[in-house]
């Protein structure tokens, strides 16, 4: 991911190109459906219905054609956590409660992951900007400022990561490899000291 030397930022993304219905749906509708599902699934108490929903969610993964390699990277940890909490729930409550938790959360996590792999980062950013548009009467929230901030962050993540690796190496050479202060303090100071230059550069281009 970020570790790749020459890879662009989009290497960071989980997005999978494709032409399924999920790919073609507008971003807002995907998030609206996801939120509706997360309310709806908690209203269902019948395990049989929830089992059908889980089967449908698994069918969705097959339909979107998420490669197995990606599946492992994306699902393993969230699903493990769901399993852990389901067992926890079965233990403190009863088996039925554990199964309810497992079916609901697994379905939701799978559907949410399908939304993640079928939504481009650019589309999501545009969605956020549109979402903020009605709020732009608040002086604090300007859609332009929001997209500037998000893209600035994206621009600097690989750079700060590389700076962190460099500092780590330099400190290891000094025998400081198990001292968190030796890494984090210079990382923060060196990064924040650039804020003046960066904001001057933005002002010189007259963002406002």
């Amino acid at each position, binding site marked *: 991911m970020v570790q790749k030397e020459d890879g662009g930022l989009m290497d960071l993304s989980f997005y999978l190109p494709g032409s399924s219905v999920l790919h073609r749906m507008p971003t807002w509708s995907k998030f609206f459906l996801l939120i509706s599902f997360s309310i709806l699934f908690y209203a269902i108490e019948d395990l049989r219905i929830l089992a059908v929903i889980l089967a449908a969610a698994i069918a969705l993964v097959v339909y979107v054609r998420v490669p197995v390699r990606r599946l492992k990277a994306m699902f393993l940890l969230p699903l493990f956590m769901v399993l852990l909490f389901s067992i926890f729930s079965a233990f403190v409550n009863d088996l039925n409660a554990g199964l309810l938790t497992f079916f609901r959360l697994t379905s939701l996590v799978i559907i*949410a992951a399908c939304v*993640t792999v079928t939504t481009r980062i650019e589309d999501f950013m545009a969605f956020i900007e549109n979402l903020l548009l009605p709020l732009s009467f608040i002086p604090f929230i300007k859609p332009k400022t929001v997209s500037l901030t998000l893209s600035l962050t994206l621009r600097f993540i690989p750079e*700060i990561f590389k700076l962190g690796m460099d500092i780590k190496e330099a400190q290891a050479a000094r025998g400081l490899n198990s001292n968190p202060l030796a890494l984090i303090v210079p990382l923060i100071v060196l990064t924040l000291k650039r804020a003046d230059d960066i904001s001057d550069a933005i002002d010189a281009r007259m963002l406002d």
Partner: protein
Amino acid sequence: MATKDIVFIALFAAIIAALGLLPAIPVVGIPAPITAQTLGVMLAGSILGPKRGALAVLVFLVLVLAGLPLLAGGRGGVEHFIGNSGGFLVGWFFGAYVIGFILKNFISDSQVNIRAHFIIFIACFLGGICVVYLPGILWIARNTGSSIFDVYLGSLVFIPGDLVKAVIAMLVTVAVRRVYPIALK
């Protein structure tokens, strides 16, 4: 918001992300290495202040929501907000605010004496642990249908590690204040 505030917010959001991507740091005396991401959340509040710190966390969370694998261990996507970590992620935002708020109101911007150490630690404890765990625990209790008290007992396992993080956050904050003091906002 001046341009420089926006730049501070963006850079700190990137620092939180980079801290999650960097390999975990082994700390002398603790068996498990610590991931630095939640440390980054505490530092956002203690170094930038309440508003900018909370906004830096918000920017980071929006990027995670957008599907970037920026959570420690290369995870990301909307499923993490729906799963059991959701409440903690929301708690990060308020935690950073509370830490910044306490520092801003109880010590001056460049104070680094014993009293400052103490207040920074208390702020990191209240904001970075109590405020973060509150929505986290409520969320899991709702998800699993179990009692809040049971979830609270279950999550006590993570408290020692978080206390170590609060101490490290205090030391980092003081060190950064010494070399590069920033007026809290």
